[in-house]
């Protein structure tokens, strides 16, 4: 009997596909349902943010960079401000530092809540998505109350923050934290022990630590592979050394660990926020020396922070004028997408979806 002739076929997953989180295109070479090769094709969301920034003053760069990584726009605000402050030797008032930490960590919680929902949705459970977004709304309300926007904040500025928090912020924030920590048990009850969830994520798409380090993967994905590397500890910025929090690490590097690690991080972020709320000092919120036409001296600087998707960095070159000469951004998603073809093959298309979801890639950060 002659052997059946089989051949590989190519599936274009994306740019318009429900589970590629934006306009990522993955060219999959498949053998039946098994993936043999992945080729990420990027650039569908390229908006030339870096070039746009070169034509804006330093203050104007911040709302543009809000769109760089819109799920955690606070981090984008912050990392650019940090770079500009380091260039211009700007002191930041204490209260502003605390407010920044509160906002950054709240934004981290919000981002991880989205991650929780989206990952569950990609693996087929619809309801957790709505639950995740429901609690995220509480945080969005806090942001809107403070800076007026829910997604693109333009809040953290060079030398401080744009506005002081309203008086009702602190009680509302505590209440939101309480609600979220109560509802964490619902999240875990829905998925953590669910046998379907376990077989879909446990032991699936293991990212070895060496490979992750070799490709510059950072953030929760790296920590889920067993590397304890968090810029809040390893390259401290702002006032993170004043707070008592743990860096969660998990060692299997599979989808389940990446998922659990983010839930752990939500808890740690809540710890940081409540500590910061307790010790929030009074005082100035912005360095008055920073003007609209902020002109740092000529030089170059690289500032990096720990974002929810890994290291978020801005490399800034100034020629002494009111506009940056060069703004180079670095987002964690890019590295995570680049490492995907090297360990994401030899599995089924459903595993790729789970894997892609737990990497938590968002495309604006990749394409910029």
């Amino acid at each position, binding site marked *: 009997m002659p052997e059946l002739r089989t051949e590989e076929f190519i599936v274009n997953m994306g740019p318009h596909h429900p589970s590629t989180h934006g306009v990522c295109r993955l060219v999959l070479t498949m053998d039946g349902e098994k993936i043999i090769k992945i080729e990420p094709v990027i650039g569908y969301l390229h908006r030339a943010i870096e070039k746009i920034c070169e*034509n*804006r*003053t330093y*203050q*104007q*760069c*911040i*709302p*543009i960079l*809000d*769109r760089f990584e819109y799920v955690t726009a606070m981090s984008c605000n912050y990392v650019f401000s940090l770079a500009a402050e380091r260039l211009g030797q700007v002191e930041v008032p204490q209260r502003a530092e605390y407010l920044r930490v509160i906002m950054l960590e709240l934004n981290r919680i919000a981002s991880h809540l989205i991650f929780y929902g989206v990952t569950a949705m990609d693996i087929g459970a619809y*309801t957790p998505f709505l639950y995740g977004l*429901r609690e995220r*709304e509480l945080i969005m*309300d806090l942001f*809107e*109350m*403070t*800076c*007026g*926007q829910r997604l*693109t904040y*333009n809040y953290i500025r060079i030398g401080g923050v*744009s*506005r*002081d928090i*309203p008086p009702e912020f602190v009680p509302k924030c505590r209440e939101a934290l309480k609600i979220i920590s109560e509802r964490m048990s*619902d999240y875990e*009850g*829905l*998925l953590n*022990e*669910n*046998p*379907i969830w376990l077989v879909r994520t446990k032991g699936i798409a293991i990212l070895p630590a060496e490979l992750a380090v070799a490709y510059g993967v950072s953030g929760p994905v790296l920590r889920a592979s067993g590397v304890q590397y968090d810029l809040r500890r390893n390259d401290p910025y702002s006032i993170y050394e004043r707070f008592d929090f743990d860096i969660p690490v998990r060692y299997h590097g599979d989808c389940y660990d990446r998922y659990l690690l983010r839930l752990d991080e939500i808890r740690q972020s809540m710890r940081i926020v409540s500590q910061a709320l307790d010790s929030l000092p009074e005082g100035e*919120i*912005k360095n*008055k020396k*920073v*003007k*609209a*036409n902020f002109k740092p001296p000529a030089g170059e600087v690289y500032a990096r922070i720990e974002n929810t998707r890994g290291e978020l960095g801005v490399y800034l070159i100034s020629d002494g*004028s*009111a*506009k940056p000469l060069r703004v180079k951004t670095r987002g964690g998603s890019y590295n995570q997408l680049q490492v995907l073809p090297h360990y994401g093959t030899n599995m089924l298309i459903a595993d790729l979806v789970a894997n892609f979801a737990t990497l938590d890639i968002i495309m604006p950060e990749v394409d910029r």
Partner: protein
Amino acid sequence: MIKKLLKDIKALAQGLQIAGKHLGKHAVTIQYPEERWTMPERSRGMVVLLSDKETGELNCTACILCEKACPTGAIRIEAPQDEKKKRHLKAFVVDYGLCCFCGLCEEACNFSAIKLATKYEFSTLSKEDLVWNVQKLQEMGRDVDYVDVRKKKPVPGAAKAPAAGKAVAGVQSGEASDTVSEPLKSPVTANESSPAGPDAETASEEGQS
């Protein structure tokens, strides 16, 4: 094996219980056109031009600070200078297709003339309708409450229009209001006395193009 099976069934039942628990709860969403969310007072929505509460005239002095502050070039002002280098507002256009609602124009303004109000509905059927002229912007701003930072300054020599430098001094004295968090002293004076700084000029031009 049996133990694991029972554990799995328990976990599955727990999921069902959590989902069922929510069945009876009230929805957290609202029925939008009938019910409306009260926006927080700082909410950055529609850009409007504010008018004086008493005279009903625009607060805008055509200093084009907001145009310079705008990172996307959504604000376009036509304000030719007369022989005394005083600007007269001829056209003020906000293109909502470009606006990114960052609020920098509001922060740049020293005369409480422009504000991001809490209004948020401006869907239209054509792109051209998103470009609002001064009349529409003023009309939308009529019922917007604001802290008038100009009034805090005792105006010396009332016959003259308030010079920019003094207005800034007024803002700094009225520090309490947090609607203007950066005083923006130097660009104002630069703007009024001499042609604006080359950087700011090019920024706005490139934004427009």
